[in-house]
């Protein structure tokens, strides 16, 4: 069984069907890059994995647990599947270290001193050893997003879901975030990444998915698919993001 399995998964908002019978299996250590036009359902697909959206049809299994098994099991899934948001969503009243430590403290039940120690180590890992006592408002966008990655890592997930992690950043700040993500991939982290960064897709991705109108229409090796787009709409899309 794969680590994440979409089984004829559907998602509707009222009369609006956003995901249509998606079948998709993602294995451990894959770095899946998800691309597609705005509104095609990329965020929704990602958010179904950790239950921020409730699926309305089919099933979705994460590490052997169905997202339909109820709140308690869903929290287990969320500890397995961390998420990094486009808008960072750091807790503004907490320092970088506190943002990272709160997960272990309140979810894993780690002691205060130990949680802090782990937080400092993670912040060092994302290159922010000197910013641990800064509040989010005192950090650049790129630094905030790196804190957010450390916060996701702190809960010791098996997969991290990235929803356009660099889209809110000025171009000169994107690379520092992409470098951290590349390092994570090299360390063997399973990742699902919604992004428009085609060079990241080519260099780091192990698999590329193209989504249109709630369906995955292209699924292949990033290099092959980007160099020889199998359909015109992907070709067209790639011309616009380059």
């Amino acid at each position, binding site marked *: 069984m794969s680590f994440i399995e979409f089984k004829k998964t559907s998602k509707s908002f009222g009369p609006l069907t956003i995901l249509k019978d998606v079948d998709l299996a993602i294995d451990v250590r894959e770095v899946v890059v998800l691309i597609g036009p705005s509104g095609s359902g990329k965020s929704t697909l990602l958010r179904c994995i*950790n239950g*921020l959206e409730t699926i309305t049809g089919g099933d979705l299994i994460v590490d052997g647990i169905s997202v339909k098994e109820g*709140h308690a099991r869903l*929290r*287990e899934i*969320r*500890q397995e599947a*961390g*998420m990094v*948001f486009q*808008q960072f*969503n*750091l*807790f*503004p*009243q907490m320092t970088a270290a506190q943002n990272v430590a*709160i*997960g272990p403290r*309140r*979810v894993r039940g780690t002691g205060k001193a130990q949680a802090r120690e782990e937080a400092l180590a993670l912040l060092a890992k994302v290159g922010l050893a000197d910013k641990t006592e800064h509040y989010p408002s005192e950090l650049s966008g790129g630094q905030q997003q790196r804190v*957010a990655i450390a*916060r*996701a890592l*702190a*809960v010791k997930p098996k997969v991290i879901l990235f929803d356009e992690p660099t889209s809110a950043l000025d171009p000169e700040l994107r690379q520092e975030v992409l470098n951290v993500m590349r390092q994570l991939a090299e360390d063997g982290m399973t990742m699902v990444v919604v992004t428009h960064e085609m060079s990241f897709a080519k260099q780091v991705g192990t698999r590329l998915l193209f989504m249109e109108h709630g369906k995955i229409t292209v699924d292949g090796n990033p290099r092959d698919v980007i160099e020889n787009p199998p359909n015109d709409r992907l070709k067209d899309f790639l011309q616009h993001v380059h």
Partner: protein
Amino acid sequence: MQVDWSVIFDYIPQLIAGAKVTIYITLAGLIGGVIIGTLGGLMRAYGGRILNSIAFVYIELIRGTPIVVQVMFLYFALPVLANIRIDPMSAAVLAIVVNSGAYIAEIVRGAFLSISKGLNEAGLAIGMPQWKVLLYIIGPLAFRRLIPPLGNQFIVSLKDTSLFIVIGVGELTRTGQEIMAANFRAVEIWTAVAVIYLVLTGTMTVALRTIEKRMRIL
């Protein structure tokens, strides 16, 4: 009739006793009101359809009727309906609890919903249950936004206690009226009563401003 401010001095102990009753009703009522209001507001903001509807009906019922009618209902109608005796003091406290609770619920709901949805999702996404996200993340942020409108409601409730004159509670306004009935010193007595109210509301304002200043508004 000459205005003679010295007559006030004879009645100071009586006025202070009245003010104490006012303070007691206000404090006891607001403690209950904050509890009910917090619950009601959270039910409105995060409850399912049923909890949300219960809170909605309660809030609209209270906001749509005058507090005098509410306290009359509690004091005169409820004993008939439920066959229980209720003393004026309890009816007064209960009226403030129920009344301020509805307004505070709206304040709490507004404050919590004004916090970005993304922060709630970030908390859920690391595996925290909803109640922990509210307690550790959203609550502390919402609290800062709660203080100014809450302060306003506290002052309104304090002044509302004067309406309990209708069920004969010996609070400050009623005390003023009783003194008046004995000596007809309208100018002196009502001035004194007004000044005491101003001191009470002023104290509240200063206390709230101090709390507000101590906190980083985010």
